[in-house]
């Protein structure tokens, strides 16, 4: 069942991405002020949304682990966090390249950029913490606590463009009352959000399968020690 879902989600994501790339490059015109470079938004924003959504799921699963002590929730949290960190890296790198053209600089310590970098570092730290602890229940408990605390920064990232007016543009999308994009330019972005979410879900399912193998190895090792 899991394998079928991985193939299904990947196939839908591939079709959506191909269709969206065609629209972004062949149909949409250049933006009046930014020219061609504005098209980075079609990867930059969906990658951010995918990663932040992933960190939210990780926070929920971490809380559920602390309540139920079921290691499956820990596996989901670990898988979703890892995939979230990858998409957060896509967001940071594409934003930096975009900033180089629009602002003339690769990086600035603006509220949104800094909070997103801190977010990436926190969740990268979560993954390093997991590698450093061998005992599964201790690893799950400590990483769940870190995941819940780290989520505070996700809220700061989301609200930073409203709370502080620094270099990064304010809300642009219509769901945040931004109104900064023409409707024809906004819809491909939402389709790309869906496509990236499907890619991320496939990757999470793959990682969960690996976490299952890892749990089996841990159990067999404990059994081997008992022999």
């Amino acid at each position, binding site marked *: 069942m899991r394998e079928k879902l991985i193939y299904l989600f990947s196939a839908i994501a591939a079709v959506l991405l191909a269709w969206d790339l065609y629209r972004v490059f062949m149909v949409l015109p250049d933006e009046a002020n930014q020219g061609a470079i504005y098209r980075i938004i079609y990867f930059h924003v969906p990658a951010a949304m995918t990663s932040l959504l992933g960190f939210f799921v990780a926070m929920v699963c971490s809380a559920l682990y602390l309540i139920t002590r079921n290691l499956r929730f820990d596996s989901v949290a670990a898988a979703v966090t890892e995939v979230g960190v990858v998409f957060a890296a896509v967001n940071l790198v594409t934003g930096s*390249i*975009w900033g*180089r053209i629009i602002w003339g600089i690769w990086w600035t310590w603006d509220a949104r950029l800094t909070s997103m970098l801190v977010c990436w570092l926190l969740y990268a730290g979560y993954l390093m913490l997991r590698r450093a602890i061998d005992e599964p229940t201790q690893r799950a408990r400590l990483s769940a606590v870190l995941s819940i605390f780290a989520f505070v920064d996700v809220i700061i990232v989301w609200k930073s463009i409203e709370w502080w007016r620094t270099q990064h543009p304010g809300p642009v999308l219509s769901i945040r009352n931004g109104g900064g994009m023409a409707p024809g330019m906004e819809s491909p972005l939402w389709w790309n959000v869906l496509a990236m979410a499907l890619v991320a879900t496939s990757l999470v399912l793959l990682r969960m399968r690996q976490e299952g*193998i*890892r749990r089996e190895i841990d159990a067999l090792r404990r059994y081997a020690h008992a022999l």
Partner: protein
Amino acid sequence: MDTRNFTFMFYGFLAAWIIVLGYVVSIAMRESRLRKELDRVRQMIEGREK
């Protein structure tokens, strides 16, 4: 400016794909390593049980 603008857009898309594809490759390598480790632990247990 326009050429540079277009070039950097290309770099942006390329960087995004490289990061995602690099991660997919790392997942595939990890899967193969985990399966080998699982086989090794199973063989070790079979050896001890005999």
